[in-house]
């Protein structure tokens, strides 16, 4: 198999959220005239955009999805409040090293951080091929290897490095290609932090991101599934289109500024911008590690009166653990608003709309104008630490002063 070859591969897991299931289900039944889903047990459905629909349209979409799942005998439907689609799939053991994972959410490559081949494919791909035949077609991508070397400076997290790479390399740098992340930084990070790299490979237009799974990944997976899996190792003679090395020691906290995810600056260059909303949530935020980091900065302090700080745990399990650790009480007392496990303000489907002139800083993944309400609102993207510091100050702020 060489780059450029077209292969048809068996799919192990298909991930839907409420919006993508609705669009794909409609395509399957109306365009494809699909009758039967070949492997219903491989389909994971998570309602993460509408966690409590405020519109009739939202209610209709969820209801149509529930009926679709019932009609086609799909057993794995996680209804509103369960969590973000990717973390729910991980939490419930649907992702394993060596698995082929697809979904029409563009951030599906996140699962490459657990040793899966994972990529986003369209509604028609899934409706016409994956659901009826259990497969997907892929054009084999060339692979670029990115070696991340060194340790992170104080106040800097994987999010900052992943975002730094997007700014440095460009939003279309890896078009139609795969990126393998390696280097001595990765083993120093916990498994969920590593996921930020394949997650954000999409912002360089990569087809997939991958990290060779190690024992830490194996242990993480074993906590979530009893199914056996093989710790896939790289071929010793694997061919890379190029190998590039980045020293991460000098990376500072990074902020993606409007209008695109690649418009990345060090926090020192944007500090002082007033914000009205701050949010920790979404696929790159709201994990237990994020809530712990948020509590570390907020403990004993108060959110700025001009700011609404919104906290969205990534799964119910994370919320429960945060309760047990006393984190939720710390966040609550600091003035944060806690929302149900979901994808939070992503696309402002169920929360997070902004009006002209307002600004939000969040751990989310997208900042295109109009993504959250008015095209004249501004969206900044940053690490949990930077969002936390900004929520306290009412302006975009460098988190390092809170992390002495």
């Amino acid at each position: 198999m060489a780059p450029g070859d077209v292969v048809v591969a068996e799919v192990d897991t298909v991930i839907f959220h409420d919006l993508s299931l609705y669009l794909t289900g409609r395509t399957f039944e109306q365009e494809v005239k699909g009758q039967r889903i070949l492997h219903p047990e491989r389909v994971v459905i998570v309602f993460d955009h509408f966690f409590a629909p405020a519109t009739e349209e939202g209610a209709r979409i969820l209801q149509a999805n529930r009926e679709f799942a019932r009609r086609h005998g799909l057993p794995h439907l996680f209804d509103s409040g369960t969590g973000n689609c990717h973390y729910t799939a991980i939490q419930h053991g649907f992702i394993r090293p060596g698995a082929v994972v697809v979904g029409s959410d563009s951030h599906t490559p996140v699962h490459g951080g657990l040793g899966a081949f994972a990529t986003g494919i369209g509604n028609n791909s899934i409706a016409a091929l994956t659901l009826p035949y259990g497969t997907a077609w892929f054009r084999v991508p060339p692979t670029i290897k990115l070696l991340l070397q060194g340790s992170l400076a104080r106040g800097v997290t994987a999010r900052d490095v992943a975002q730094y790479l997007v700014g440095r390399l460009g939003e279309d740098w890896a078009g139609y290609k795969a990126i393998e992340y390696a280097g001595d930084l990765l083993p120093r990070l916990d498994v969920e932090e590593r996921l930020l790299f394949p997650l954000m490979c999409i912002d360089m237009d990569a087809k997939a991101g991958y990290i060779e799974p190690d024992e830490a990944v194996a242990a993480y997976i074993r906590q979530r599934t009893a199914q056996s899996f093989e710790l896939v190792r790289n071929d010793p003679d694997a061919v890379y289109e190029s190998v590039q090395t980045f020293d991460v020691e000098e990376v500072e906290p990074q902020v993606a500024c409007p209008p695109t995810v690649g418009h990345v600056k060090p926090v020192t260059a944007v500090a002082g911008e007033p914000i009205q909303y701050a949010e920790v949530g979404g696929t790159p935020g709201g994990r237990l590690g994020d809530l712990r980091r948020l509590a570390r900065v907020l403990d004993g302090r108060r959110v700025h009166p001009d700011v609404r700080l919104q906290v969205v745990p990534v799964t119910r399990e994370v919320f429960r653990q945060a309760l047990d650790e006393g984190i939720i009480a710390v966040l609550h007392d600091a003035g944060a608003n806690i929302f149900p496990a979901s994808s939070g303000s992503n696309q402002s489907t169920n929360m997070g709309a902004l009006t002209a002139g307002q600004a939000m800083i969040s751990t989310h993944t997208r900042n295109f104008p109009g993504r959250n309400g008015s095209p004249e609102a501004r969206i900044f993207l940053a690490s949990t630490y930077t969002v936390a510091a900004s929520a306290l100050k009412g302006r975009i702020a460098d988190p390092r002063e809170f992390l002495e």
Partner: protein
Amino acid sequence: MSALRVRGRCWKVGDNIPTDAIVATANLFKPYEEMARHVLASVHPEFVLGVKPGDVLVAGRHFACSSGRAVAPKALRATGIGVVVAESFARTFYRNAHEIGLPILECPGITEQVREGDELDVDVEAGLVRNLTLGQTIQAVPPPPFLRGMLKAGGLHAYLELHGGEFVS
């Protein structure tokens, strides 16, 4: 079957246009005719007012990044656009467009060589863009044979129906 030879007026947009600007989330579940009335409205308001069937949309680099939804090329098709020619495409859109049977053509250098309003003749199979207004021909990157087959059939589903559920090389 998709028309792989298109002749029409050129409409131009810039680099890194996200799918959010093609179909905003708020319009995601509306009928295509209604969706089509808002396509690219935030970046090129005149486009939906003046576009005619068979016109050519020319974009810069990394066209249709952001969400991977196939609704984006479907809404573009609903505007009547015959083909999208871009410096480059986001990979999800590149895949989706072929799968729904919307002809697209990657053409490095295109934005320098056509102006809004020029009359263009696009041959997708041959990978050629002719600027009839300026009398120039621009070489593009024709789709690889596999995707050309999909496009000729009219999309992935039509292709699979044509070939009994099998991929032929």
